[in-house]
């Protein structure tokens, strides 16, 4: 029950933080016409929609009270949607970075073929994609040395750590790993929240 409650809080908070990021990406795309922002917009929107969908399903299930078959099925379906959308979202963000940097290498699009609703596969894919994203955000920070890019780097690093611990949870079913994974996820989201606040102050 505590785990469900925590998931509900992180999902709703996650959606609240990720939607502004997708809005800024859209604003940037409309102003510059650069395709990389369209990838970021779609990626962050998918990420936000996935967690919002699971959060709302959990909220509804908790409101209905008790372990009802319909509620359980709804949460299970929403969780699957959320897992798939997260992997797709990360693939899109990685693809955006890939196109932006024009670095030769394995096309991230190939990774999309491996998307299944199995949590283990999803976690592994997410870790792989986040490593790719992290390398790009680290080189962006290396170049600019700005506080903002450091916050983005920290955000992705914490999301990666959350997924690594999440993988440990899938393998061991340890409650501590689940808790730590959520805590790292929240910390990552807070880092993105700091970016949103800083960007909204500019101008």
């Amino acid at each position, binding site marked *: 029950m505590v785990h469900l409650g925590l998931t509900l809080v992180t999902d709703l908070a996650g959606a609240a933080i990720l939607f502004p990021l997708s809005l800024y990406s859209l604003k940037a795309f409309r102003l510059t016409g650069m395709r990389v922002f369209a990838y970021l917009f779609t990626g962050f929107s998918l990420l936000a929609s996935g967690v919002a969908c699971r959060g709302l399903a959990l909220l509804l299930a908790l409101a209905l009270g008790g372990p009802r078959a319909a509620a359980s099925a709804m949460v299970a379906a929403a969780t699957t949607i959320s897992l798939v959308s997260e992997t797709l979202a990360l693939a899109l963000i990685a693809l955006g970075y890939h196109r932006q940097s024009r670095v030769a290498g394995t096309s991230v699009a190939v990774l999309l073929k491996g998307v299944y609703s199995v949590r283990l596969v999803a976690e592994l894919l997410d870790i792989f994609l986040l490593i790719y994203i992290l390398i790009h955000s680290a080189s962006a920070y290396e170049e600019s040395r700005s506080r903002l890019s450091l916050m983005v780097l920290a955000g992705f690093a914490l999301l990666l750590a959350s997924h690594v611990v999440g993988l440990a949870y899938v393998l061991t079913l340890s409650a501590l790993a689940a808790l730590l994974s959520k805590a790292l996820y929240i910390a990552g989201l807070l880092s993105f929240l700091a970016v949103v606040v800083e*960007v909204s102050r500019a101008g």
Partner: protein
Amino acid sequence: MKRRSKLRILVDILRIVEGEGAAKVTHILYGANLSYDRLVKYLAELEGKGLIARREREGSAVYVLTEKGRKFLREFRKVEKFAEAFGIEI
């Protein structure tokens, strides 16, 4: 040296106009590092979009930022910050 995008050139012009308050063409020309022909084309485009306005001051033409231009620059600064955070060059 990297080639500036058209958007970057337009923003550079707007920033010069904003900094000067009322900017003469020659000031914009030096600040934006453009040829006269190209500058005239960009100024006409910015004027057409309502981001700057042409005024006559002491017998010579000056350009001032409109409210729409000011708003555009504010939005651009946010987008610039956002892009910088993700290591994206506009």
